[in-house]
């Protein structure tokens, strides 16, 4: 009985594939791409448990169990890169997460359409500038003869290359992140704000609520679900700082505060060709990230009924 239903099902599928062969060809192209460029690398993480040798390849290299992971915890740099990753992320969330929300709230109060559009257009702009150019501008502005030094030297500060000071790296990194993304990230909040029923504001005004009370009782509740979903996503990437900007801006003088997990993986893996070891670090990083994401989602589901899945 079971055998026949399975048989029937299979023949339905095969006749369906024949009838709609083009659509299955489209799916096939996409699936092949995902297998090659996403799932083969995922399988490739097995070299974290091997001693990868270029000559032998992924399959034939010998297994070493969790040696690469234990080596990571004995690595003199491991604590430093974990700490830097977390600190940069946490400060970035602390300063960078509320910034676009505040911008959206302020823009929402602007009555003049033209002014609002102009502000929006111009603040979105830095988002589209390439990382290399942004870092090039940062390097130039922070150099000892650069604009920032020219400005602060008039207040009596000594001119120095700001990017070679480990104490300033996080500030430079995070403030330029905000500069680049504040406008763009405010789009989502502005959309959510425009979806709030104007009747709610009218009712609040009837009840004698001022601007501040309207903000607390109408606007913020209307934004909660958007904020929560974005916060969950952000929490899920707390351990993954994009290394592009880091590796363009850091130098051995600032490794103390600037070197993060991903930049270390890049250096050890691609510059020193320690493939297995750096894959192990990357895998450790991805797993922790996933745990953060699941955890944040669980918390959000429990307390705010917002969740990604």
């Amino acid at each position: 009985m079971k055998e026949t239903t399975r048989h029937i099902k299979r023949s339905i599928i095969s006749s369906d594939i024949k009838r709609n062969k083009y659509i299955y060809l489209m799916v096939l192209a996409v699936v092949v791409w995902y297998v090659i460029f996403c799932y083969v690398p995922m399988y490739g993480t097995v070299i974290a448990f091997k001693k990868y040798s270029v000559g032998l390849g992924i399959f034939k290299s010998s297994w070493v169990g969790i040696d690469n992971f234990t080596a990571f915890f004995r690595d003199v740099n491991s604590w430093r890169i974990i700490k830097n990753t977390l600190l940069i992320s946490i400060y970035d969330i602390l300063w960078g997460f509320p910034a676009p929300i505040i911008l959206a709230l302020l823009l929402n109060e602007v009555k003049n359409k033209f002014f609002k559009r102009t502000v929006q257009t111009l603040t979105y702009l830095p988002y589209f500038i390439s990382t290399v150019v942004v870092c090039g501008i940062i390097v130039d502005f922070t150099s000892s003869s650069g604009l920032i030094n020219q400005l602060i030297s008039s207040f009596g500060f000594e001119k120095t290359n700001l990017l070679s000071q480990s104490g300033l790296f996080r500030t430079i990194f995070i403030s330029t992140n905000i500069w680049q993304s504040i406008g763009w990230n405010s789009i989502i909040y502005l959309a959510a704000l425009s979806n709030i029923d104007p009747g709610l504001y009218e009712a609040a005004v009837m009840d004698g609520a001022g601007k501040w009370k309207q903000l607390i009782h109408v606007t913020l509740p209307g934004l909660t679900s958007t904020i929560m979903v974005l916060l969950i996503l952000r929490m899920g990437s707390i351990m993954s700082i994009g290394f592009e900007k880091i590796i363009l801006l850091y130098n051995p003088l600032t490794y103390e505060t600037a070197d993060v997990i991903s930049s270390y993986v890049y250096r050890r893996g691609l510059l020193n060709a320690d493939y297995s070891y750096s894959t192990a670090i990357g895998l450790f990083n991805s797993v922790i990230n996933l745990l953060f994401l699941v955890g944040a989602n669980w918390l959000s589901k429990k307390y705010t009924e917002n969740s990604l899945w």
Partner: protein
Amino acid sequence: MVTRITISERVFNLVNIVFLSLLTLACIYPLLYVVFASLSDPGLLMQHEGLLLSPQGFTLKGYSLVLKNPNIGIGFYNTVFYVVVGTFISMILTCFGAYALSRRQVYFAKPILIVITITMFFSGGLIPFYLTVKGLGLYNSYWAVILPSAINTWNLIVMRTSFMELPASLEESARIDGANDFTILFRIIIPLSKAIIAVMVLFYAIGMWNSWFNAAIFLNDRKYYPIQLVLREILIQGDKGNMLQVMNGVSAQSESMYRQLVQYTTIVIATVPILFVYPFLQKYFVKGVIVGSLKG
């Protein structure tokens, strides 16, 4: 309802507008500074301290130096190639995926969608990715820049959501007339989704224009270098070889002066194409983000 504007509201509005104006200025001033500096006379620029409100003197020397640099020329040419071919391939694959996964008649659409979504949250990481691409024999070829980043999962899901909103009745009559899925996709679905297609083309094109990392790890032959890699050498690494080529015909004393000018000018030249398409399509961008975030 009579709107009463209290004094405190008036003050708030004024402060708000001043604050937003300053913020906007802060967002674009770094770019303005670079543009002014690129047009300035390098000698006057060196003496100048503080903010620039207009070019110091005026010269196009930086631009003529940069445009004569063969590396910039090759980089530009390669980037245009990457953008055109890469965006085309990306769009084809993304449209295929979005269309196929938005149709009800496809078996396995659900599991495939899950498989695709997983990649947004978990990846093999940098090193296995690098080894995979290298293992495919793509190392040091145009394909190494184009193929590995061909599909952006977020874009695919946004596009699928947008395709799903089109009424099914539109394609039914075409199907009865014997149209196949390619015809339906290219003749019916895509023409009806111009806004989202425009957004995606621009996302992919700008992404490709700005990308440098895959090129940096997969290319070692200069003839494949995109403009961003040349920029990295000039701006970040302060590469001598590249600089000297740019510096042809400039006396040794003024070299350091011109070096800075060349840096500003290369920034402008590499960014202008983006600024050029940006205002026209800004409204579509916003639409795309909103479709993606609220319904995706």
